[in-house]
Structures are given as structure tokens and as C-alpha cells.
């Protein structure tokens, strides 16, 4: 699944980034690399953007950014 589909409060691990160029770089600089743990923290009222906890920092992503991030949800 992709990160935009991760329910609020859930955790996942990044498996791949399906995006190129500067936008890919930007995500990597935010700490989103294969293997990174992500936690969906808060969603704004319209569901976009969403705040995620990544490597100890809160990062806000727009839906189209989150859609490029493939994740494996953490089994619960």
C-alpha cells in the first residue's frame, strides 16, 4: 500500500519511493528511505495534508507526496 492509505495512528515501514528527481530527493531528505519507520499522526480536517512522525521528527506531507511512498504496514 502507499503512505496516503495508512490509517491515522498506524505504523508502517517504507519499502520504496515511486517518484523521481527533486521530489524524490525532497522525500529522502525528510528521512523517508526504504527501511524508515513511519507513524501517521494527524490528518487535517479535509484529510490533506497529513502529519507523520519520521525518525523522531514531525513531517507534513501532501497526499500526492504520500502516494509516492510505498509502505508495509506494521502487523498488529
Amino acid at each position, binding site marked *: 500500500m502507499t503512505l496516503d492509505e495508512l490509517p491515522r495512528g498506524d505504523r508502517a515501514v517504507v519499502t520504496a519511493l515511486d517518484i523521481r528527481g*527533486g521530489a524524490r*530527493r525532497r522525500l529522502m*531528505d525528510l528521512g523517508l528511505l526504504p527501511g524508515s519507520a513511519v507513524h501517521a499522526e494527524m490528518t487535517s480536517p479535509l484529510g490533506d495534508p497529513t502529519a507523520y512522525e519520521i*525518525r*523522531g521528527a514531525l513531517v507534513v506531507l501532501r497526499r500526492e507526496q504520500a502516494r509516492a511512498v510505498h509502505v508495509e504496514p506494521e502487523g498488529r
Partner: protein
Amino acid sequence: MATPLPTPGVGRTPEPPDAGGACASCALAPEATRLARLGLDPGRYSHVVALAGNPNTGKSTVFNALTGLRQHVGNWAGKTVARAEGGFSYGGVGYRIVDLPGTYSLLSASADEDVARDVLLFGRPDVTVVVVDATRLERNLPLVLQVRQITGRVVVALNLVDEARRHGITVDVRHLARELGVPVVATAARRGEGLPDLLAAIEQVATTDDPPPPLRLVHRDPELERAVATLADQVAARFPTLPNTRWVALRLLEGDPGIEAAVRDGSLGDLAAPPPGTVEAAG
């Protein structure tokens, strides 16, 4: 050891420095640390120090402690709009210090990050102090690694260790220093803790003739390695005084628009500064 200090801007007679500034846990006392804060004007200086780091790691707090200036300190993003400069002297030697805008990366394009990366890449500071947040180390280390790919003249200031302690976080400073190949100094800049050690590390890195080499990314892919080498040679031919041509080549291969434009219009060459160690008079 009893070097007399030139102390413009400090209205006191310095006492003889004691062994390396033994006061490691109290507010930074200039007379105990061979430090003289020189405010805006370093006069003649021998070394340039750049302060880099993520936003809100305490760069401006360190800058103010060393220069006696009051660069804005605060808890919101985007406050260091451009770079701020000041001076200090340590052990009788003058330093110019530049407080850079906060940046998470030297690779993404944004106005703030461009200022920081141009200074670090092409200004060739004698020492780059990367100020990192000990409570968010993982988030801060990518920038440290990016800086280490550019230069070995680096000191890591592991700041906010007081906050880290409050959260029960301890960082293995010696291990980190060994892995990064550069000095790592634990600091709580707001209370002056660790700043004498930070100054000693800055002095050591500024004056060494033998800094560790920049970290080199190893590409498993020989074709990529060949492309980088070929392109780096071409960049070097076009801009003979430019350092870090390998880094520029990698950026070009990644399609970095800012670097592409700077190569195309030739402005990349303007960024190259005189080599380190040049003694200049401040304008």
C-alpha cells in the same frame, strides 16, 4: 601557555588561562577559555568557521556565545534569513564565524539551503561546525554525512545534551566521533556547557595540516562510477579553481536544477573562493 590575549570588546583584563578552561559545566567565562568575543568585526583573522545544522539546533546560540552578538534566537523556522557574520579570537588567533540558515540537506533546492550549501561547498571554510540536536540525532545525521562528503574539516557540536539528559537519552560521543572520523563535542550551548571543549576542537581542526579526507560515497555500479569520474573531469576543466568537482558531477547526474543552471551560465566559477588559510583583512 600564558599567551597574552588581545581583548578588544572585552572590558576586562584577562587572567592567565588555566588548564584548557576547566569550567566545563558553567557559563562560558572568556577569561577561563582563552576566548575574546569580537562582535561584528573580527579585524584580521586567520580562520573562517561556518556554523551549519538543521533549524532549531542552537546554531545562533553558539554564534552569540562565541561572538558576544545577539543574533536572533528563537523557536520558529526561518528566522536566520541570510547568513550572519561575526568574530572571536581564541588563543590569540582571530576567527571569522558565519551563522548559516538552518538546513536539513545540501541536496534539495530552497533559498535558505542554497545559501548554506554555497558557503559550505565553495566558500571552503577552515572549519565547519555542524550543530546537531542530541534529542533528534537520527534526523540530524544525514546533514553531517553530506558535509563529511565535502570536507574533513568538521567538528560536530552535539548540542542540547541537557534536553537529551532530561529525556533519558545518552549519546556515545566517542563512538560517534570514531564513525564520523571527526571530533564530536557534547554541548548545552544555552548554559555555556561544553563550549571550552568546542573551541579547543575548532582550533585543532583549523590548524591541522592533515585533516581526514572527505567521505567518499562508494558506488557499487561501475558504470555510474565511470560517469561521475568523466563528468567530474569535464567540470574541473571548465572551472579549474572549483573544489568538489565530484560532488558537482553527482548533482548534475541527479538533475539538480540549481547546479545545472550555475554550470550553464558560468556562475559556478564565481563561487570558488581563495584556498583556505589565506589571511585577509576584513572589509
